[in-house]
């Protein structure tokens, strides 16, 4: 008779069929997508802002006026800063750039006149043109040729060969580690408290004893934990698929955005392309198989261990939400502690604290995921996994005892001392 199966089925279906599940599961990626789209939309609208700028160039910096970066420069002659200041708007210019006759080593008094403040992007574009022109003039004055200068400019990238002979993968590793650690942390928190609320619901609605007369308390607890874990997996799977799909249809939704992207790519090819190439290469160099296997392992081990603790807490709460917050604090603490160690481990994966955190079963799910990309020695990984399995068996056994007693107790505030007493009690 598969009673755990029935419990899992109920826990899973009642949650997945709920409207709030549908809403959060579908809304969250939409919000992320909207956020992403908004950022891109803003950056496009900003750079495509075309402006007409009138220039009085007494220093002779603008050799070839015209259009650059969506800004149209028109050189005006026979005017002074004072005289043209009042006219540029009437003549259809948005901005008026005044460059006095300047000392190229100490340029001063260059102004842009405008009705309202000039946007940072336009200001920086104009500054870039003037800087380039000044630089060229200074090179000329110092008698250095432009290609000579280019050859002098240094741009070094330091390699990091490991003793093991493999190539290090620092940038990508840091990103992937951080994401994995945060994901595990979120899973423990979100679905752990969901288990606690589920147990509280059973206790407060007084159905616990009815169910316990058909199912062993441990079966009920395990069924609930597994059922909610499956809800979590479903939710994450839907999120991943939705985010992936949305990112792929993005260019079709905003054709101008795609255009812009190619433009940007061709404009600033060298640097960013190289960087992206590097990142791609280092991503490929990561042990993806190991990451996925470890993620699943630490997700399951950590989730079941913490969910059983949350279930035990839920079982001793009679009505009071405040009571819940007090009791749940010691359970949340190690998760938060693990999160703090993780933020350190991402930048310094082999420090003593990081190694300890990745071995100690209460913090290892979060911390080990943050170290996994940085070539963790095999003995540490194996020790960590064995300890997690032991920890999870130990805590599940322990919390099942508290749960079994707590779930049948009504109208009484339970203290930690009493809970510890229950641990030694027979059924």
């Amino acid at each position, binding site marked *: 008779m598969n009673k755990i199966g029935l419990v899992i089925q109920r826990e899973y279906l009642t949650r997945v069929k709920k409207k709030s599940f549908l809403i959060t599961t579908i809304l969250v990626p939409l919000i992320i997508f909207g956020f992403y789209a908004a950022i891109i939309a803003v950056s496009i609208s900003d750079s495509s802002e075309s402006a007409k700028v009138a220039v009085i160039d007494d220093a002779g910096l603008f050799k070839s006026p015209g259009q650059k970066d969506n800004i149209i420069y028109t050189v005006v002659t026979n005017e002074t800063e004072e005289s043209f200041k009042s006219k540029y708007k009437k003549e259809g210019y948005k901005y008026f750039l005044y460059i006095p006759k300047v000392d190229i080593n100490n340029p001063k008094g260059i102004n842009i006149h405008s009705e309202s403040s000039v946007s940072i992007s336009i200001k920086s574009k104009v500054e870039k043109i003037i800087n380039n022109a000044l630089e060229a003039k200074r090179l000329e004055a110092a008698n250095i040729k432009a290609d000579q200068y280019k050859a002098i400019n240094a741009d070094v990238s330091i390699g990091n060969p490991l003793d093991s002979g493999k190539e290090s993968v620092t940038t990508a590793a840091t990103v992937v580690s951080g994401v994995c650690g945060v994901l595990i942390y979120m899973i423990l928190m979100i679905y752990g408290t969901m288990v606690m609320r589920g147990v509280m619901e059973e206790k407060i609605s007084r*159905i616990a004893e009815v169910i316990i*007369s058909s199912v062993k308390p441990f079966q009920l607890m395990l069924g609930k934990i597994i059922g909610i874990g499956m809800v979590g997996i479903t939710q994450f799977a839907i999120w991943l698929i939705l985010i992936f799909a949305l990112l792929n249809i993005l260019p079709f939704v905003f054709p101008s955005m795609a255009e812009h992207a190619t433009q940007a790519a061709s404009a600033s090819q060298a640097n960013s392309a190289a960087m992206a190439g590097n990142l791609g290469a280092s991503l490929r160099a990561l042990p993806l198989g190991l990451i996925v296997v470890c993620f699943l392992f630490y997700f399951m081990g950590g989730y079941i261990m913490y969910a059983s603790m949350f279930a035990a807490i839920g079982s001793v709460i009679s009505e009071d939400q405040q009571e819940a917050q007090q009791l749940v604090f010691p359970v949340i603490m190690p998760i938060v502690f693990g999160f703090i160690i993780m933020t350190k481990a991402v930048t310094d994966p082999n420090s003593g604290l990081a190694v300890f955190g990745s071995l100690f079963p209460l913090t290892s799910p979060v911390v080990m995921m943050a170290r996994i990309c940085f070539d963790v020695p095999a003995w540490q990984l194996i020790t960590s996994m064995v300890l997690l399995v032991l920890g999870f068996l130990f805590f599940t056994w322990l919390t099942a005892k508290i749960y079994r007693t707590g779930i049948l107790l009504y109208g009484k505030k339970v203290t930690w001392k009493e809970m510890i007493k229950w641990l030694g009690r027979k*059924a």
Partner: protein
Amino acid sequence: MALLELHNLKKYYATQKAVDDISFSIEKGSIFGLLGPNGAGKTTLLRMITGIFFPDEGNLMFDGRPFDPIKDIGNIGYMPEERGLYKKMKIGDQALYLAQLKGLSKAEAMSRIKEWFLKFEMQTWWNKKVEDLSKGMSQKLQFVTTVLHSPKLIILDEPFSGLDPVNANMIKDEIYKLSQQGATIIFSTHRMEQVEEICDHIVLVNKGKKILDGSVQKVKNDFKENLFKIRFANRLMPEHLAIHLFEVIKTGEQELVLRKDAAYSNNDILQYFISKGLAVESFNEILPSLNDIFIKLVEGTPTARQFQPLTA
């Protein structure tokens, strides 16, 4: 034949002896009353019978075999005092889930639920949620889910609390019917008038000990005080009462309550009044109510006041 036998059951907690050496047996097909004040150990006893707790000592026999919590759980239907349902779950789904947990197949559970819903006029409730039901309605649903899998042993803890008289009668009738069909019923309550009406056999526990065991009739006989009530067609005169046959408890114009001296028979009393020329209209023995018996037995303990007559 006994369906359930309890032999020297013990369950001790750190601070108290919740159940301290209790034995009794319950006949197949009987309606059995388990009575006792709060904290007497009833719930612990019921939890041992339903396999939720293991006894510290002693053993249980179910249907002639040693009780096996895993296997026999499907033969028991338990409606605890602290009962409830999943508030957000649809009623039909809920009944289906509970029945399946008891081991019924989905199809079997479905057809039985429909049958019971029809009987209790609940057909239209299927898609409602428990939070939309009144207390009485959810009590009915709770009863249905308890008996859905046709258990051999049905345990009802305060089954009528929160029910109006119409619904209480409906459930009472079903209890009788189930009993006639061979189910054994354990009925746990504080409401003595219900026990007197429904139960064949009772056990009273107090402070973890069994203090009374027997059929309702036998218990009443054991505690009778030879009180009789006589009604006459003519007026009762003081001179009629000066006699050693009985002690006068209460007199009315044409009515008399007396305590008979155990040495005399009922006929002696009747003959006496007839010889005095009084016309006897009725002659009844006053048996003690279970309520009186329990107050007497539990008296002196701080929980005795719970047995004062309830007006509800």
